[in-house]
């Protein structure tokens, strides 16, 4: 169904007539699509997307995170047990994070992680039959941005997965436009959690609310909304 690309499909729809690509005859099915025998079924309600040469998937509004290998997520440390931390990443199962998976950590030199802390980490193992596993280092053993997020003055918003994907896409200029006017730090987890920190709590609240409310807006609308927010901030 090459025609329904960009249109709404609902669970149970059967898709056919995929666009043939020059390079390969195979079609790659992304989230929301499943092959049942000869047919391709839709398993999520949303908009059918296509990317050259042969990738199909469904964009939908969802809040439950399904771990995928290599994605960056923000987790909340819930339990310290033995040599691992249990971290809530919004998936069905808690993820594990070894205390050795931090920069410069050794058996003797444990990282300072407390229950309730936020960690920005990468998914090392994401398998539907196994517990997800997180790491806070890259393959070279450096932190490269991962690690415990300090709890001084930042705030985290819980949003839908769709919004996170939108924010991270190069077409969306909310972070660029917002950052030009209100300087802030941010960490965006693919599990629908966005941590922001600006100079003052007031600015942080403004940034967090601007991001959270931008889900169904176009770039032009986002600019208007941010302009209005800034007017209010400066006391117009």
């Amino acid at each position: 169904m090459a025609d329904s690309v960009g249109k709404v499909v609902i669970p149970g729809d059967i898709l056919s007539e995929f666009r043939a690509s020059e390079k390969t005859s195979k079609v790659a099915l992304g989230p929301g699509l499943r092959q049942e025998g000869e047919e391709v079924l839709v398993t999520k309600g949303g908009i059918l997307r296509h990317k050259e040469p042969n990738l199909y998937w469904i964009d939908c509004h969802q809040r439950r995170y399904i771990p995928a290998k290599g994605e960056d997520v923000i987790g909340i440390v819930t339990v310290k047990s033995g040599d691992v931390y249990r971290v809530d990443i919004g998936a069905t199962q808690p993820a594990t994070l070894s205390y050795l998976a931090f920069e410069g950590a050794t058996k003797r030199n444990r990282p300072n992680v407390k229950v309730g802390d936020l960690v920005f980490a990468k998914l090392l193992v994401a398998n539907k039959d196994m517990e997800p596993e997180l790491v806070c280092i890259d393959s070279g053993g450096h932190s490269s941005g991962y690690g415990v997020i300090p709890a001084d003055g930042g705030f985290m918003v819980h949003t839908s997965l769709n919004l996170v994907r939108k924010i991270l896409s190069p077409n969306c200029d909310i972070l660029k436009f917002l950052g030009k006017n209100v300087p802030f730090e941010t960490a965006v987890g693919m599990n629908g959690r966005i941590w922001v920190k600006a100079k003052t709590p007031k600015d942080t609240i403004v940034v967090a609310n601007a991001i959270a409310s931008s889900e169904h807006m176009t770039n032009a609308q986002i600019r208007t909304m941010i302009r209005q927010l800034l007017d209010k901030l400066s006391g117009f």
Partner: protein
Amino acid sequence: MKEVPMSTCEREFILKAIRDRKRIDGRQTYDYRRLKVSFGMERGCCIVDLGDTKVLAQVSGKIEEPKKNRPTEGSIIINLELSPMASPAFEPGRPTESGIEMNRILERNIRDSRAVDTESLCIVAGEKVWSIRADVHVLNDEGNIMDAASIAAITALSHFRRPDVSVMGEEVTVHSPEDRDPVPLSVHHMPVCVTFAFFDQGEFLLVDPNRSEERVMDGRMVVGMNMHREICTLMMSGGMLLVKEQVLRCSQIATVKVAEIIELIQRALDKDAQARQAGEKCGFAESVPTNKITTNRKEATAIDTTAAAQQASQVIQEAGPVDKPMSNMLVQAPGTVQIGEGLVNTWDVDDEDMESEEKEGREKSVTNGREAVATSKPTERKRPVKAGEGTVSHAEGSDSEEEETVMLFQGDDETKSTEEPDSTALMQPSNSDKPAKKKGKKKKAAQK
């Protein structure tokens, strides 16, 4: 299922913001979230939206035997349902401790304060009484279920109509709604809960805490109050001590909030009653557009007009000054202008008739004008056109909607109607606001 844990980062930030007199959703300390009361198709069904918190209440009634010790009183049962649909933290099955607590507050607030008269629910003393049951379902929990539930319960009770009953000797007949109009319950007063959240051992307080504020608060206080400033319930929970002044302050805030809420409820009830009487569509299903699957109801959004304003100013600059007016305009009377000579009268009415009637007085000419509209342009009949509307609108002449009515007065009689300065002066104030309203509507449409 367990709820998503709260990180120290969020907790600290919310507390810090509260100490700075700020809230994360941008409200002020004593602000409620947006409150919306809507009703179902059936009587006694009410949905309350408090921000993202959503509560549904449904009232039903049946005939039962009364309690032995109170043979002349009907009963009122209030049941609060916390289903897992509202929040993953709620387990199905047995109600939790907090669920029982909230249910008890609702009962104390509405039943024990005698808000609904139970003696009028008696049919035959000692044998048959009405038992009224209010089921309050929490559909979404985004904090402060208590206030939303109390508003939903009392509104549903005042919205409910029970079937009329008549007693003939031993026989009791329940009349159907077609037979006799159902009767409302006698609601003496409307008690409503106002929740206060306390932080830092009662040093800071907030009205209407949302979900994240509820999770970091030290304790809360629920004040149930009615319009007459009578406290019906007062409940404090959480391990903290409050000074006397703080409690008094809360009750004073509650009086203001309760007055606002009850006014809103009353307005919603009146609006629904009017809609039902006029036979219009009512019920919350009507308020949601159903023809599209991808869209939900959206608030009007602002449009960026900076680019358009720039363009407009550019156009004005480029255009330069206007050399001469579009046509020769003749000022007939203050506020009216004649454009062109006018055409021959094409209406069925004779000119002489018109003239003679014109002399008779203003009212006559107005009615004549209306008739003429009806006869000459049958398509326009739907729109109630007043003769006066035409006279004024041709003076401004820019509104496209008014064009057709302008046509009507470009005939010979145009000059006559404008020759009466009194009548036009009288017309103007009543008509001047009409085009403005239309423009307003257009703007709304454009925003949508």
